[in-house]
C-alpha cells in the first residue's frame, strides 16, 4: 500500500492540516515524523497515495502549509515528491 507522508515546518501547521483534511473527508493518520527524516520530535500526517491530487490541490489553494511530501510503502523508503 502506497502512502504519502506530509511533513510541516511547525506543529501548528500540522494541527491546521489535520482539521482541513477532516473537513474535506480525507483520512489522515497522525504519526511521528520518521527518524530517517528528522531527529526532532516532529508530527507528520500519513494519507493514502490516492489522495495525491487532492493534497496538491489543497497546497495550491493555500489551504494547507507543508514542508515536504514523501511517498512511501511498507518498506518505509521515503521518496520526496516534487
Amino acid at each position: 500500500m502506497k502512502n504519502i507522508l506530509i511533513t510541516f515546518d511547525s506543529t501548528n501547521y500540522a494541527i491546521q492540516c489535520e482539521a482541513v483534511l477532516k473537513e474535506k473527508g480525507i483520512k489522515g493518520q497522525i504519526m511521528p515524523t520518521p527518524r530517517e527524516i528528522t531527529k526532532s520530535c516532529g508530527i507528520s500526517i500519513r494519507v493514502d497515495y490516492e489522495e495525491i491530487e487532492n493534497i496538491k490541490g489543497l497546497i495550491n489553494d493555500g489551504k494547507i502549509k507543508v514542508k515536504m511530501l514523501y511517498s512511501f510503502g511498507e518498506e518505509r523508503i521515503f521518496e520526496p515528491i516534487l
Partner: protein
Amino acid sequence: MKVVDCKGLTCPKPVILTKKAVEDPDFDEIEVIVDNQASRENVKKFLQSANVDFNMEEKDGLYHFYAKKKGEIKKVDEPVVCSISNISVDQGLTYIISSDKLGTGDDKLGAMLMKSFIYSLTEITEKPGTVIFLNSGVKLTTEGSDVLDSLKKLEELGTEILSCGTCLDFYGLKEKLVVGSVTNMYTIVEKMNATKTIKI
C-alpha cells in the same frame, strides 16, 4: 486451483508451503489461506520477491492470497525472517492512559501528541501487555476516536486493551466502546501491582 491451507500454522510454515507450491514446475495458480497477520506479511513479502502476481482478500478473519504465475519465478533463497513474529508483547508491562491528551498544556497539542504516541505503539517491536484507559482516556477507545485503527492493530498484535467501566459510564460511552473490553478498579489495581506500570 490448488489451495495451500495454512490455517493454524505459524511463521515460517506458511511461507515454506507457499514457496514449495510456487516453485513446483506445474505452478500456475494457487490460493493461500493464512489466519494471522505475521503469516500474511511474510507470505506477501515472499510472493513479491518471487515475482508472482497476486491479490489478497480478507474474509471472516482469514487472509486469502490468489497468486498467479506472471513469468519466470525468482528463486528466493534467503532464509524466512518471521519479521512480525519479532514483535514481543511484554506481559509484565502495563500502560495507564488517564487522559485523551498527552501531557499538560495546550489541548490541541496534547490531542495530537496522543495520536502520535498511540500510532508509534503500533510500530515499535516491544509492546506493552496491557493498556488501560481511564478517565477521559476512554474517549480514545470509543466511537469518534481518531486512534481506533491503531488500537485495533495493537490488539490484533496481542496487547490487551482495557477501558475503565466507571469512566465509560460517566462520559455516556458505555454503549460506544469499539476496541478492547471493560474493566473495573480491582483489575486495574491488580495489574498495577503485578506488572511494571507506566502512567502516560
